[in-house]
């Protein structure tokens, strides 16, 4: 067998399927050990097939959180995982390849513990599971009985979003009569709630595959190379992008940080964080005033064009240049190029939508640019940021919503604020009184990943009781009263199905027994529900595969998921659903079907926004922390917080990875010289919310006035309150946008000094 060159395009399974029919699979078997190899992978790496080893097909633990849920090949010997690498047909990124270091980390939580020191001291004492379940159930009973279940915040985090836990994590709280849960998102509601204001639905993003048909692709605040966004598996986005570029698509990346994605573009346009809306609206100004808009498309499909035309007169390129730091000529030329080289596409990412110019006006501005240029519903185009292809995974009635008597929710970004003030913004933006006394977190990074970590610590210290189920002594674990050791994905059955854009559903089979005394979240909920007398109601006897089977059944109304059974998923391990490439609004554009809005057109003027008391037309609101804000007198530098390819938010930042990815304060030579800072100097980066101390890295990868620091590593405050771990949320804020209740991390100013 020769060297297989066609990486990515060859599907070894297709070969295996035909091979199995003709009996070839058996012939490659003599070096293989254990059934799963023969059944599934066919040709294992020799070292992986050592005597007594078995191979399993799993899904990266980022399942449910990373949009790429990559299948992995796991080798097990004598009950211990000896190798984890990419599935031979597909690719995974650093996060998948380094998982063994996470699973086998000697610092994993190994048995249940209760707090004996002060909160935050991380002093704990080993207890039995019996005692732990008694405490878990007993505290729900005690605090819920005394103050009502509303006083308990149940927060299963993004670590619990696999197919096997999606339904039970909802049902558990509800069968107990309900507990307070969260709404909004730390993630992408700034896009998904905003896109429908203009396009009527959330699924407004084309599959990235369509870049190959674009003459110009503007990648706006979108780090494919590091974040694997909106693709099936790792590297896919970058391969699509690089292939398209080799075939002639011009790639422009707009980003405050010169990412590996920007490094593969024809042009990088650095921009001041949070000002993307100003640039987009100035581009609309140019396109309209130079009469370059698609008159036919506008006449047929756009509502509110005249109002928009008048409205954007204020947004001149000259005005935008001052705010964005992008030269006036460049704004103009990019606008002209985009309008006159159709099909061209803007692919808006997430970062620019997490800013305070409420409510993600940039998302609407990008949508307006697509609308006026007719860059919608055709190959090579993209409407605006939202969801992409949606598989339609749904838990249906499995959540037992009717059993909950609790009516309030907390915004996910403002948990601390609600605990401290007793007031919580609801999803209708009315404020409701709350009194939270207890927090139950499963795989929840409430300290590390929500804005303003110090404020959350303050709030946690105020609570009567905190339960944390996780794999490590996370920042939340340190402030908990009861610690429950959770299993990794490899210690049970689950599936990755991320709903946003990828077309793959990936089964993750149990590779090893739970390590140490670890238990799955599902086991914990079943035990607590049983202890509280609602075991039958919760379906405590259901195993992970039962929950998956039932969730797939509940999703069978979705045209994409309708035919997918657990049996098929278990057999094939990786199943692709839905037509590809997904390009929304094709029927509207080619067949004249109305857009799913009230007017049947793309609404540049949104009455829904107007009814919410928000600007009806895409508007740049400069009201957030930036160089023009009063806070900038003390803190003149804006910060952006890119993702790292090596870990996913607060997860998988393991020992292998840690060594190669130092968390530095990346700053421009101009800002560094001004502060007499050199690469390698210890610096403090600070604002009113907190202080981080790390090493400086002087680099042109950010423009002057901007600091970059990769997000996700753990908040580790010392006795002096200085976070030497480098959790960027020490500095960020917990304000939310006004449509989706989503985080606005990227509207933050700081100062840096040498120590």
């Amino acid at each position, binding site marked *: 067998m*020769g060297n297989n*060159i066609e990486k990515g395009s060859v599907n070894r399974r297709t070969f295996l399927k035909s091979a199995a029919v003709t009996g070839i699979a058996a012939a490659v078997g003599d070096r293989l050990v254990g059934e799963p190899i023969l059944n599934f992978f066919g040709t294992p790496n020799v*070292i992986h097939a050592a005597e007594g080893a078995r191979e399993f097909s799993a899904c990266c633990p980022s399942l449910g959180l990373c949009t790429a849920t990559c299948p992995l090949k796991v080798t097990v010997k004598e009950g211990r995982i000896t190798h984890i*690498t*990419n599935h031979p047909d597909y*690719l*995974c990124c650093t996060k998948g*390849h*380094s998982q063994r270091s996470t699973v086998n980390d000697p610092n994993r939580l190994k048995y249940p513990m209760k707090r004996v020191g002060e909160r935050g001291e991380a002093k704990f004492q080993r207890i039995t599971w019996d005692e732990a379940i008694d405490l878990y159930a007993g505290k729900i009973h005690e605090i819920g009985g005394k103050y009502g279940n509303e006083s308990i915040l149940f927060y299963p985090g993004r670590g619990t979003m696999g197919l096997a836990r999606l339904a039970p994590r909802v049902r558990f709280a509800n069968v107990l009569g309900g507990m307070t849960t969260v709404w909004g998102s730390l993630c992408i509601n700034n896009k998904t709630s905003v896109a429908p204001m203009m396009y009527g639905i959330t699924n407004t993003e084309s599959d990235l595959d369509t870049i190959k048909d674009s003459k110009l692709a503007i990648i706006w605040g979108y780090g494919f190379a590091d974040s694997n966004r909106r693709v099936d598996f*790792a590297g896919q986005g970058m391969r699509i992008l690089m292939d398209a570029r080799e075939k002639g698509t011009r790639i422009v990346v707009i980003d405050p940080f010169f990412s590996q994605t920007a490094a593969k573009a024809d042009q990088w346009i650095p921009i001041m964080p949070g000002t993307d809306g100003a640039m987009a609206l100035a581009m609309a100004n140019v396109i309209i005033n130079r009469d370059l808009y698609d008159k036919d498309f506008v006449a047929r499909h756009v509502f509110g064009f005249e109002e928009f035309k008048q409205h954007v007169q204020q947004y001149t390129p000259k005005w935008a240049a001052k705010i964005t730091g992008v030269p006036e000529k460049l704004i103009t030329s990019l606008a002209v190029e985009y309008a006159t080289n159709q099909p061209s596409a803007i692919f808006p990412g997430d970062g620019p939508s997490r800013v305070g110019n409420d409510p993600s006006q940039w998302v609407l501005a990008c949508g307006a640019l697509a609308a006026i240029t007719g860059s919608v519903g055709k190959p090579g185009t993209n409407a605006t940021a939202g969801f992409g292809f949606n598989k339609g995974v749904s838990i249906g009635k499995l959540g037992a919503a009717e059993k909950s008597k609790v009516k309030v929710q907390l915004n996910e970004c403002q948990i601390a604020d609600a605990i401290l003030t007793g007031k919580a913004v609801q999803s209708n933006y009315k404020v409701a009184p709350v009194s939270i006394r207890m927090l139950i977190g499963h795989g929840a990074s409430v300290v590390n990943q929500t804005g303003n970590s110090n404020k959350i610590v303050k709030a946690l210290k105020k609570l009567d009781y905190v339960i944390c189920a996780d794999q490590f002594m996370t920042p939340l674990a340190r402030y908990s009263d009861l610690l429950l050791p959770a299993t990794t994905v490899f210690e049970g059955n689950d599936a990755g199905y991320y709903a946003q854009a990828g077309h793959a559903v990936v089964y993750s089979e149990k590779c090893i027994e739970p390590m140490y005394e670890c238990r799955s979240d599902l086991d914990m909920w079943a035990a607590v529900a049983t202890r509280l007398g609602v075991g039958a109601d919760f379906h405590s006897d259901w195993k992970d595969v039962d929950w998956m089977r039932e969730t797939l059944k509940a999703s069978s109304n979705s045209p994409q998921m309708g035919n997918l059974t657990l049996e098929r998923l278990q057999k094939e391990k990786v199943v692709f659903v839905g037509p590809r490439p997904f390009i929304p609004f094709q029927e509207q554009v080619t067949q004249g079907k109305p857009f799913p809005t009230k007017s049947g057109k793309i609404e540049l003027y949104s009455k829904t926004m107007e009814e919410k008391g928000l600007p009806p037309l895409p508007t740049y609101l400069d009201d957030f922390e930036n160089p023009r804000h009063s806070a900038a007198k003390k803190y003149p530098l804006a910060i952006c917080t890119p993702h790292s390819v090596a870990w996913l938010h607060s997860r998988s930042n393991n020992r292998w990875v840690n060594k190669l990815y130092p968390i530095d304060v990346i700053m421009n030579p101009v800002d560094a010289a001004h502060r007499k800072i050199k690469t390698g100097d210890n610096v403090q980066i600070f604002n009113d919310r907190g202080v981080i101390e790390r090493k400086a890295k002087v680099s042109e990868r950010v423009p002057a006035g901007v600091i970059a620091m990769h997000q996700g590593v753990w908040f580790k405050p010392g006795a002096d309150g200085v976070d030497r771990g480098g959790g960027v949320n020490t500095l960020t804020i917990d304000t939310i946008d006004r449509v989706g209740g989503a985080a606005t991390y990227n509207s933050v100013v700081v100062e840096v000094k040498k120590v």
Partner: protein
Amino acid sequence: MSTTQYGFYYDADRCIGCRACVFACKDRNDNEAGESLYWRTVTTVESGKIPNLRLSNQSLSCNHCAEPACVAACPSKALSKRSDDGIVVVDKSKCVGCKACGAACPYGVPQYGTDGKMQKCDLCLDDIKHGNKTACDSACTGDALYAGPLNELARTWAKKSPVLMAGTTHPSLLFPKPKKPK
């Protein structure tokens, strides 16, 4: 020469610096490498000025050179170049840990574990000779890195006019012919 020299094809323009190769290599080989060593490394070098910046990624492990300096420098004959495939291998039982190979290698490839003995990439010998891909090749997310017989790699990538990396030791590393700067 009748030897079919094995080596790598690496296209830095396609490398996105993700280090999947580094960790795939580590996962496959770390039973020997231990926690703190990496047989393959990726270095990213920044050059230029805003906004005309460049990131040059360089993924590197042993180049299995045609004239390996490490082999010549080894006083205990622990290092050898295999006659049939040109893969440079180390026999740990003969290694005395003198680190002469480390001083001789122009690319800083030899590493020394807690046993003090030299260790490095063996091109996933067991696998590549059985028709499997090397760990790094199998893992590359950017279509940048391939391993195998150099003549096959050169044929496969003919459209990129691959050239051998220059160097006194004649590394078995093919690059696409550098484009003339615009």
